[in-house]
């Protein structure tokens, strides 16, 4: 057991954990931020997506010890022009159904829009292929990403 300092949502948090504990469980069980979800434990579903320096990572296969010094953003801390536009579009189009996968979908979509302000459907397929939704909100997610892109552009 060792102590790790994590920068989560602009705050420094100290956790006592095994070096190989996945970031997912440190964030959920030790830090207490439960917006990041467990879905598969093997980087298959994307429910556990967290942004590390703006890049989407799968926190279920990322050990806590490797994340010191990285700027981590979970769904609870997502803000800024793109993040706010994504969340607003998600709410406006009533995208979530059960909502369990949506933290991951939103963070993946935010990373996409940050890199590609005007993504094509093909760009969306490529960026979102790793995020499973069992309720089948894919069409609404696609619509919401385009809507958010439009709203960021017009501001």
């Amino acid at each position, binding site marked *: *057991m060792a102590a790790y300092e994590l920068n989560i949502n602009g705050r420094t948090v100290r956790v006592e954990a*095994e070096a190989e*504990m*996945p970031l997912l*469980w440190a964030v*959920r*069980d*030790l830090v*207490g*931020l*439960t*917006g*990041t*979800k*467990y*879905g*598969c*434990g*093997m980087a*298959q*579903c994307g*429910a556990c997506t967290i942004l590390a320096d703006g890049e989407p990572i799968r926190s279920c296969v990322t050990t806590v010890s490797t994340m010191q010094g990285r700027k981590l953003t*979970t*769904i*609870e801390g*997502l803000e800024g022009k793109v993040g706010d536009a994504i*969340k607003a579009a*998600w*709410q*406006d189009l*009533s*995208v*979530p*159904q*059960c*909502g*369990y*996968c*949506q*933290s991951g979908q*939103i963070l993946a979509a935010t990373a996409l829009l940050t890199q590609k302000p005007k993504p094509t459907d093909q760009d*969306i*397929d*490529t960026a*979102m*292929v*790793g*995020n*499973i*939704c*069992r*309720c*089948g*909100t*894919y*069409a*609404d*997610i*696609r619509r919401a990403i385009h809507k958010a892109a439009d709203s960021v552009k017009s501001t």
Partner: protein
Amino acid sequence: MLDRFPDQPSRRDFLKTGAALTSGLVVAFSLPMGLGKFAWAQDAVTPNKDFTSAALPNAFIKISSDNSIRLIINKLEMGQGVNTSLAQLMAEELECDWQRITCESAPVAPVYNATFMPLQMAGGSSSVSSSWEQLRVAGAMAREMLIAAAAEKWGVPAKEIRAENGAVHHGKKGSLTYGELAEAAAKQKPPAPVKLKDPKHFKVIGQSMKRVDAADKTNGKAIFGLDVKAPDMLYAVIARPPFGGSVQGFDEAAARKVPGMKEIIKLDGNKVAFVGTNTWAAMKGRDAANVKWTLSDDPLLTQSSLQKTFLESLDKPGTLVKTVGNPGNALKKASRTLEATYEFPYLAHACMEPMNCTVAYDGKSAHIWAGHQMPTTDRMVAAKILGLPPESIEVTTTYAGGSFGRRANKDSDFVVEASSLAKQLKKPIKVVWTREDDTRGGYYRPMTMHKITAGLDSKGRMSGWDHRIVGQGVMAGSVFGAQVDKTGIDPTSIEGVENTHYALNDFQLQLQLMKSPVTTLWWRSVGHTHTAYVMETFIDELATAAKKDPLQYRKAMIPKSPRHQAVLDLLAQKSDWGKKMAEGRALGLAVHESFNSVVGHVVEVSVKGTDVKVHKIVSAVHCGTVVNPKGAQAQVESAIVYGLSACLYGELTLDKGQVKQGNFHDYPVLRMPDMPVIEVHFVPSTDTPTGLGEPGLPPLAPAIANAIFKLNGKRVRSQPFSKGLA
């Protein structure tokens, strides 16, 4: 199954308890799932419309002096949107300010029972249809009590007062907000009867109100079962045996060495729980223990012999379910016969949020947190284990990360384990299922096979139809199991065939129920998952044999169902049916009634070898009044995606009771790039709403199969298609 848990009440106990708790009056009631009539002890025949004893203004609506309105939702929000659609039913009559409402999940109490059975439950696509009258009445009663309070205060007749947008208004006296009247309204006598609005005056029903849970589900605030945290809570993962298996041994010392491992508890001789200070510690402990199992040689628990047994059973006589005319004679007279055998695998629900349950128990009372589709029975089962009266157990129904039937568990499996552990630990405990636990944990869509022998006369017209079904069904072990045992007929195995709308003369249906240690359960659209496929692909074959257009053929074969006719007409109008398609593309059609709604799809498909690509789906839906068009569209899209995952990829296979698949790499589901374009059209209607969470699923797979036939001449008779086309 039940004797695996010495603490768990048997079905017999359950029924006994049920009878003891009620007046013992036995009435017949209809289930909305097409399950027919079942007798059960129930103390109230009518829906819950008596709110006089409930809190104010009634059990579903709480108005505070600050004008906030809390609506109590008595169905699990599992994605289907009940928090929004049921709120719309209440808000329509309440005349409140939609922006002021918040929704809360109901505790367990008889007043929150479903209107069709003495249980609180969400399932069978029944939430809106069964609440349609009840919740509008609740809204209207609250409104009338607010008006009565104002009338008293102002000293004017109630009929001079109108309610609108969260306030009451009088020509001379002015206005009072609901918040200002809340306290006085609570003292009013609930009116009876109340008159409900004419649909032409609806302002909220029929509108695409935005989901009330969308904000919490986009900022991480929504609490799902897995997110529950109680003070001093411990975390458990459980090693569960393969089907028919038992524990051989495990390395307890290695498990105890894992940092954070607190307890190792044998649950019933066959399960071992690893309890830690966090989820990861519990998982690591289980890994380190490396539990070994003694495996079963039951032929039904290994895929090849399982398949052989089912196939052989198709040729043995089953229980006669239905005979129309004289199928034997008609088949003899036929100029040729068509024979087809269909195979459907076990399927896991694979909710995004794996099963879990948190229980806190202090010896005198308890608290359970989970996504409960049936909180009443979950509490009853926990009460038995904990040795408490059910009323001493508080139940919090959290959001569920999908459910699709899985959290309506006939054995309350996820609650049983957590309750048993809480009893031993006397500390709050959260049982977490890994994805592999969830995939391999049973309660599957049952493996099922069908065989049809149908005769055709010289003009291609049907001349006799012999239909046999072999499968496990899902009712065994449920509260309805005794009836299934007695009759040999599980309604969920035959729904969609037995009650087909097609005019079938000279028809016979037999069912053979198989018994296996593999547990089964209702899985989105239940029996219709396979019966619609068989009926709709075979009708297509008959249309081809008769050289008729499949859409017109269906219309002629369903002359007496206006809903089917309307759906087929809408499909003909909105889809490209009958138009020439691009090279390599074909359209397929299917229509099916389930949960009292009729859905038809026209799908555009291409095939490369065994790879099936669905490009576009045009759906026509008749579900009566549409409460929330956007939400309704989302439910149809959702059912389509769930059905696509199943027919394209879904299959669980067994090896000595071990399920080979475990996670999304070997039990794949649909992803973004394979999402087809979907258009959903509703038949305009002011009928009472019928089901919608499930009916979009059944006609999907057969529509695709019918398109595949046009492309490559192959009739796909096994799912998933990747296997059926091989």
